[in-house]
């Protein structure tokens, strides 16, 4: 079957144009997975002490290299956003007027997250430049 009138072209999946709430949900999931990923890494590195100091030190030294620093900055960003947005989600769930202030709460999360993140990133990245 092809439409009798009008040309066809390959279909490409479109993106649903959800609002800020959808994006904060996606970010919340993404940052949550990043923090969880780091947690697994952290369990791995601390468990290496069981195999000897040498193994542990080798691993931890990777963290101290300059190229690892931006990843740590991302981790801090993820922790900050996830925790601030988590507070918003708690308010929206438990506070009976939370839903009505959803927009203001979202703006507050973004502003507070940025205010916390920018100086942290600056302090963390300064030594490697």
């Amino acid at each position, binding site marked *: *079957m092809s*439409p009798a*009138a*009008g040309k066809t072209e390959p*279909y490409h999946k479109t993106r*649903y144009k959800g*609002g800020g*709430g*959808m994006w904060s949900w996606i970010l919340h999931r993404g940052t949550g997975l990043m923090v969880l990923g780091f947690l697994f890494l952290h369990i791995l590195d601390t468990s290496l002490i069981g195999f000897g100091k040498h193994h542990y030190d080798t691993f931890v030294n990777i963290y101290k290299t300059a190229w690892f620093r931006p990843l740590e900055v991302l981790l801090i960003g993820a922790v900050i956003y996830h925790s601030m947005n988590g507070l918003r989600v708690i308010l929206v769930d*438990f506070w009976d007027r939370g839903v009505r202030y959803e927009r203001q709460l979202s703006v507050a999360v973004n502003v507070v997250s940025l205010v916390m993140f920018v100086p942290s990133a600056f302090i963390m990245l300064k030594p490697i430049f």
Partner: protein
Amino acid sequence: MKVQLKIQRFDPATQDKPVWGNYVAEVEDNGRVLDALHYVKWYLDGTLALRRSCGHGVCGSDAMVINGVNRLACKVLCKTLDQPVTVEPIRGLKVEKDLIVDMEPFFAGYRAVQPWLVPDDTDPGGRERLQSPEERARYDDTTKCILCAACTTSCPIFWGDDTYVGPAAIVNAHRFIFDSRDAGDRERLEILSAREGAFRCRTTFNCTEACPRGIKVTEAIQEVKRTILYRKV
């Protein structure tokens, strides 16, 4: 005015994957997307499949993804849209043909919450069960639902899991949970506190934005969640 349309065309019986069909429809200056779709079906390509009944925003048949958001085709004026206007079936449900989807998972969620009045044991003595205007106002917002599925199929959680009862089912549960004449709260709240119930909602607010009836969907869901938590109706 002329309206350029890109419509997702897909017949699972004969095609492996969907294609975009491009059409130019002629509608009046105040024509709606439904008028443009009618033009395509009636004058350009009769094989186009779509659902619609009343055509006036009441029956809830023609919810579709119009320029990336869930809308009723009969309520959106073409002149308010960027062209070409993209029209796709609502998401998270199996496409049967073109813009028609299998609504069964949606209605299964609706049926699950027992969307009918469960009276208490008292005998009203052959009279109606009265309620005050204040009691009626308590659930007024959620009586407006037309079951078009625009909310449920705008929900990212539902896209990934069609066993989630979805916003529309919770809205319709809300309509009875907060009805002073209803005595079925316990059972309904039990159903909604299950794994696929109200707590699957992650408050993305897509549903509230998508509702063509202006129901505060997320707010209703949150009221249900808190009622489950604190058991106060």
